[in-house]
């Protein structure tokens, strides 16, 4: 552990791209890493992609070092190839801490990489601090579907430790105006890209409704219990002049099409008003609600996490509240 105390640590962030640019989490990782590294530490980024020179320069406006893996094998995300490519970098640079985002891509890449790098992994952290006089890391994460929080302590191995951070949980650091960091081109080994090959990307199916454009959304979750009961939220949405959206289990059961799913594996919506009906409020669902709408939650469980993010809540049975609300709205509209 000689090189790996948490005092002035060297931190490596594996950043993610989004479309042609950088994902927001690239700057959230920098914010988190800077806070942990302090004045004496250093913060580097690993960037993988094809033709990503511009992005490397952008990162070098905030990160001290940027290690670039520019190769056709990284054109599309491949957690397996990423893990293989990055293991030698971690071995050479010996960071005390490796950070990545807990996104779908982070989930694909981080666990296998942590084993290859020989470091313990703290997944999906809401906070991360140095603990035990610099000999450990302490993180808060959610367990039991967000109903309980857990404080975890992680003792680094000789090789350090790794954590993935929940998107949006850490304040982003702004890049500076000038390129101040060093950009390094990295070699890519022959084993990278073996065993797993991309075949094609599948775009979401086109649909006649576009919930991303709706001002009012009535979103329904597993609490609706049965496909037949959807009718009550459909007529509430109609009364409000809004659209019906839903959580993932409703799509999994085939009750509504994927084009109505809100969340990290569904659509990102920006309505003015969002009614969450029988939805517990998992971060994967809430992560798809942007633009701080007026959020109303109707749920019979007073401890459902959705009440932690809603503006107004009704603790009650949706089968009573939803029809009552629809009636009052129709009354009010005359």
């Amino acid at each position, binding site marked *: 552990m000689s090189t790996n105390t948490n005092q002035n640590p060297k931190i490596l962030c594996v950043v993610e791209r989004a479309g042609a640019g950088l994902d927001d989490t690239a700057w959230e990782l920098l914010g988190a890493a800077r806070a942990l590294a302090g004045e004496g530490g250093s913060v580097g980024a690993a960037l993988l992609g094809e033709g990503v020179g511009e992005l490397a320069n952008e990162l070098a406006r905030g990160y001290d070092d940027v290690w670039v893996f520019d190769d056709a094998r990284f054109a599309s995300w491949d957690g397996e190839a990423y893990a293989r490519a990055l293991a030698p970098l971690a071995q050479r640079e010996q960071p005390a801490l490796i950070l990545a985002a807990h996104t779908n891509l982070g989930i694909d890449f981080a666990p296998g990489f942590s084993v290859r790098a020989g470091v313990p992994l703290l997944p999906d952290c809401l906070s991360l601090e140095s603990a035990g006089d610099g000999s450990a890391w302490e993180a808060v994460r959610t367990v039991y579907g967000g109903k309980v929080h857990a404080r975890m302590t992680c003792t680094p191995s000789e090789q350090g430790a790794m954590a993935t951070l929940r998107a949006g949980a850490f304040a982003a650091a702004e890049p500076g105006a000038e390129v101040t960091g060093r950009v390094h081109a990295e070699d890519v080994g022959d084993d990278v890209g073996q065993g797993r090959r991309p075949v094609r990307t599948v775009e979401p199916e086109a649909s006649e409704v576009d919930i991303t454009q709706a001002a009012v959304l009535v979103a329904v979750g597993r609490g609706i219990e049965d496909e037949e009961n959807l009718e009550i939220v459909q007529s509430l949405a109609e009364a409000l002049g809004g659209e019906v959206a839903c959580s993932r289990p409703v799509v999994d059961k085939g009750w509504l099409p994927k084009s109505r799913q809100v969340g990290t594996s569904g659509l990102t919506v920006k309505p003015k008003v969002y009614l969450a009906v029988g939805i517990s409020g998992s971060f994967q669902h809430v992560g798809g609600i942007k633009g701080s709408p007026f959020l109303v939650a109707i749920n019979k469980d007073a401890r459902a996490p959705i009440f932690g993010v809603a*503006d107004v809540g009704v603790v009650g049975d949706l089968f009573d509240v939803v029809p009552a609300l629809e009636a009052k709205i129709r009354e009010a509209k005359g």
Partner: protein
Amino acid sequence: MDIVVCIKRVPDVAEADVEIERSGLRIDDSDLSWGMNEWDTFAVEEALRLEAEHGGTVTALTVGGEDDEEVLRRALAMGADTAIRLADDAFEGSDPLAVATVLAAAIRKRPYDLVLTGAVSGDTGSAQLGGMLAALLGAGQVALATRTAFANGKLEVQHEVEGGLERVVELDLPAVVTVQTGINEPRYVSIRGIRKVASVEIPVEGAGDLGLDVAAVGAAGAREALSELFLPPTGEGAEILEGGPDEVAEKLVERLRERGGI
């Protein structure tokens, strides 16, 4: 195709008033109902679907105590050929890497082409076991699968990437795939189905059977430990409207009107 499915028993907390025990290290689970982790029900179904189409075997594994045998029995009732419980006093206090190490040791002992796990456990929410297992086994992996198809010795897997996109990849076998909900429709298991497998002997394998170094698993080797469970701070939570359905509906209409929702 010989398929191993890793399954876990978890409590259902969706509508429960979760209380934390005084130790601060456990929730009071005495009143909770338990069952197979939601994602794992899809993993078992996917294994059975592939077996039905291509032949082979399905083996269900869990690292857990006697109570956890229940989910292995459920897997058998769904149609799995074999179920094995991995248990040993030496496994107590294992961190996620140690659980993966135990599973890897059990999987290595038998012929396998494919390992399926759930994408995530509903209790710990870690979403890491499958990836760790793959690296330990030296097998390829892909996370968050929404479709699998086997042809010409290769497995085609569609999986969720970012921004609502999915990608199809081709994997050499053996491989580890973590399974998302919605990939299939897990079959219903009747009480009768469970009864049919009630007397099946479920073997237990321990550290010795698996050739595991006890220093590498359990509390001794753990690099991660829980220091405290607590209820999320409720500081800025929602304004809760009180009253019967009509009363709250009235108040909601008012709020919606203020906020331009009506």
